[in-house]
């Protein structure tokens, strides 16, 4: 579903991604782990067609980026730590707006269905700026699944959420993934990632250094693998 080969991204003189290779099969839930500055968000923004690769090949659902970006975007749902929602519109109006942008059919039925999924039907006529951070993040997921995308990209979706909101968000994430979608999620939270993902990739200094399946490892081992990867990075930098 997602194939990335020799991806390089430079910002001026700074190289953030250094020949990154990455492959995700349909229905996989990949947690992309790594320290701050490893290039996780940059990588996700390239997959989301919000940033152009400097070099390398990126293919999603058979379409190449950046040349076939519009075709890729229609198959992508993206959730970041920012909600991408308008505070002065109601939850329903936000979804109506994005439904029109994505050309979704049967808008009213679909919005009703999505509001059910994210548990915000009762608050659909409330302004988004009155929502808590957790409710905004749930609505952000609703926005991202509105057009029923094949691939979901989550960029640290738990950032700024309290424990209850995280648990509720995990429920929605699991439900989204259970529909057979391909999911790539960046996270700092190893325990959360361990509960949700079927594969863990560690991104360090612009390349994937480690890739392990959920079936091959438990949470404690994942933590050890992650720490080893960070130690290795520190050793290389030193």
């Amino acid at each position, binding site marked *: 579903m997602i194939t990335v080969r020799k991806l390089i991204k430079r910002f001026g003189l700074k190289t953030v991604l250094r020949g990154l290779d990455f492959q995700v099969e349909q229905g996989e839930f990949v947690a992309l782990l790594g320290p701050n500055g490893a290039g996780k968000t940059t990588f996700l*923004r390239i997959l*989301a*067609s*919000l*940033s*152009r690769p400097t070099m390398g090949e990126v293919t999603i659902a058979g379409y190449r980026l950046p040349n076939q970006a*519009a*075709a890729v*975007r*229609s198959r*992508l749902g*993206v959730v*970041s730590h*920012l*909600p*991408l*929602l*308008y*505070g*002065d*519109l109601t939850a329903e*109006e936000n979804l109506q*707006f*994005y439904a*029109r*942008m*994505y*050309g*979704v*059919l*049967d808008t009213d039925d*679909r919005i009703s*269905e*999505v509001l059910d*999924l994210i548990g915000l039907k009762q608050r659909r006529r409330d*302004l988004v700026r009155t929502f808590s951070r957790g409710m905004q993040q749930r609505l952000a997921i609703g*926005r991202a*699944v*509105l*057009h*029923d995308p094949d691939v979901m990209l989550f960029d640290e979706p738990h950032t700024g959420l309290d424990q209850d909101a995280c648990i509720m968000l995990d429920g929605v994430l699991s*439900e989204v993934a259970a*529909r057979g979608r391909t999911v790539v999620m960046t996270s700092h939270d190893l325990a959360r990632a361990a509960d949700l993902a079927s594969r863990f990739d560690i991104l360090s200094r612009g390349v994937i250094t480690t890739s392990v399946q959920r079936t091959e490892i438990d949470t404690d081992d994942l933590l050890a693998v992650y720490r080893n990867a960070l130690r290795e990075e520190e050793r290389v930098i030193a």
Partner: protein
Amino acid sequence: MRSEAKPAAVSMTTGFFRAMGAVIWKDLAAELRSRELLSAMLVFALLVILIFNFALELDIQTRATVTAGVLWVTFIFAGTLGLNRSMAIEKDRGCLDGLLLAPVDRAAIYFGKMLGNLIFMVIIEAIVLPVYSVLYNTNLFNPGFLLVTILGSIGYVTVGTLLAAMAVQARTRDILLPILLFPVIIPVILAAVKASMGFLQGLESPEIMPWINLLLVYDVIFLAVAFMTFDYVVEE
């Protein structure tokens, strides 16, 4: 969740106008609720007119020569506030990314934002012009003058929306936009002031038409430039 909630298969033209309409609707709906942008632009515009009144001592003779200049400076300053705010709303909560993620021609997003800004600017002009007329006893209800106001506003928001999209990426966006925008819109200001003054002073059309033509050419050129470059302006 159902699986057939796929995007409608529509022609590119339909998709373009649907997305453009959605952006305009969203901007108007949000502004109708918050009234942040219009109220700031309006208060600023009225204050600028009052300040000019004291600074230039707008007696009858002075008014005849400076009305067009005062009004255009007022529109430009108030418009800059609106352009900055209109793009800041998109950037602050990551909404610009939300727009750019939509599978539509990004020019549709530009034209939606541009037309939304034009509507706000015309609303401000529709309030400021009668107020100026009443306060300074000047008849501004001249069809030619109103045509120039629309053409000048189109030129201004065409460039302004494009440069606001560029400036909003920077930390210093509030000061960057005027620095980028004012040099580029000198032809619009010059042509709009000259043509407006011509209509208000009752000059013959051969003296006004070159300025109208300049406004038209500027509008068409920058609409084309924005159409071709917006995608690159908003991308990292």
